């Protein structure tokens, strides 16, 4: 029987990353959707940029950045005693950076398509921007929010290059399912690799199916015949 710890770590990493990205990504999406700032395209381009490099390369640069021998990493250790190399927190930081566009862009584009007077109506009721965002705007871009969340979660589950690079493959700490599958396959333990993959797929499939089933029947299309 395969060791289940890597699977558990993977889901934990995906969940924590998704939660962080909800917290960080939604305000960014909100800002981008209504900003008329000249720097907005710059911010949008920057957010998408990490995607352009392969995760393993991003991981490589994070390795350099986080390394205690270098300025940033050293500063983190000496001032806050935070170590991001070979730790679970480091994986979270890396995944958050890498998956940011998957959360931000779908939500932002949906917010931009909302009729503007929804927000205005809420303002006339004395509601703040924050309250308007959470109670009016966000619920009305639900499909996009689900898209962002699912893409982030699934993508983090499947994240491998970055995790391998800054994780160090420590069992129970940073050895997530993707690394385990990879190791087994390279070690020619195809059976173990298949088992891990299958478990990962089945669980993920159930999660995805639940999300989409619950969210079904929310199309606003009338049956046109």
């Amino acid at each position, binding site marked *: 029987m395969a060791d289940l710890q890597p699977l558990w770590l993977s889901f934990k990493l995906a969940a924590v990353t998704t939660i962080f990205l909800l917290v960080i990504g939604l305000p960014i999406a909100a800002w981008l959707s209504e900003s008329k700032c000249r720097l907005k395209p710059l911010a949008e381009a920057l957010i998408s940029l990490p995607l352009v490099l392969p995760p393993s390369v991003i991981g*490589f640069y994070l*390795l*350099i950045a*986080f*390394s*205690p*021998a*270098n300025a940033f990493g050293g500063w983190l250790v000496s001032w806050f005693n935070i170590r991001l*190399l*070979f730790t679970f927190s480091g994986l979270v930081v890396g995944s958050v950076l890498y998956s940011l566009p998957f959360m931000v862009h779908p939500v932002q584009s949906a917010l931009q398509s909302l009729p503007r007077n929804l927000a205005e109506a809420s303002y006339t009721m004395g509601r703040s921007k924050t309250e308007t965002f959470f109670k009016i705007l966000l619920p009305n871009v639900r499909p996009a929010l689900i898209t962002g969340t699912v893409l982030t979660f699934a993508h983090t589950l499947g994240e491998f290059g970055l995790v*391998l*690079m800054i994780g*160090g*493959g*420590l069992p129970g700490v940073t050895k997530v399912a993707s690394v385990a599958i*990879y*190791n087994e*396959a*390279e*070690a*020619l333990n195809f059976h173990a690799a298949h088992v891990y993959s299958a478990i990962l797929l089945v669980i993920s499939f159930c999660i995805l199916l639940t999300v989409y089933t619950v969210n079904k029947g929310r199309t606003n299309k009338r049956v046109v015949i």
Partner: protein
Amino acid sequence: MRLAVAANAQYVAQQLADEFKKQTGISTELIVSSSGKLFAQIEQGAPFDVFMSADMKYPLELEAKKLLLEKPKIYAYGQLVLWVPDGKASPAALKDLLLSDYTKIAVANPQLAPYGQATVEALKKQQLLTALQSKIVYGESIAQVNQYLLTGAVQAAFTAKAIVLSPEQKGKGRWIDVDDSLYSPIAQGAVLLKSSRVNNYEDGRKFYAFLFSPSAKKILAAYGYK
């Protein structure tokens, strides 16, 4: 002709390719990756001619699958070294790793990389493995172990002698040999692939022969292979 080569041997392979070109005029394309990945691709018919693995496991496996034109042969025995960055006093022995100077030590994944397996074996023999366990981080391959060291992520790394002796890495940091009585020999096998027959059979065969020639032996020895 296409030469698939395991990451630990990439420098020496380049040198071998240069020499081969000088002798025969045939140029060589290098495909560098981990032995496991290359194995999987060869198994599915990747258009390579010769494969220089990091061990004998994959070559034997290929033979069992009847994908070879000849029996696999050992082209070199790899040597394990302990590498530390500049600025650290080089350790006199493995047990120096217990010092608090060394907070993290990189080891290739023993499950995948023969050098990793050798490292674990050596540490075990010196009864250091348990004591060092909390310091050890695993690299996917020798190459990643090297990256960990050169980027300062770790303060010591177990790597191949071929790396530290290569002109590219010479002078970066210091290193000491790990006594080769501490680990079983790292036999690295090379194979001539059946897929070569549709590819560059003649050139492939020539290179394969060249790999076991005295001039190749000389180059391999210069990189610390035995």
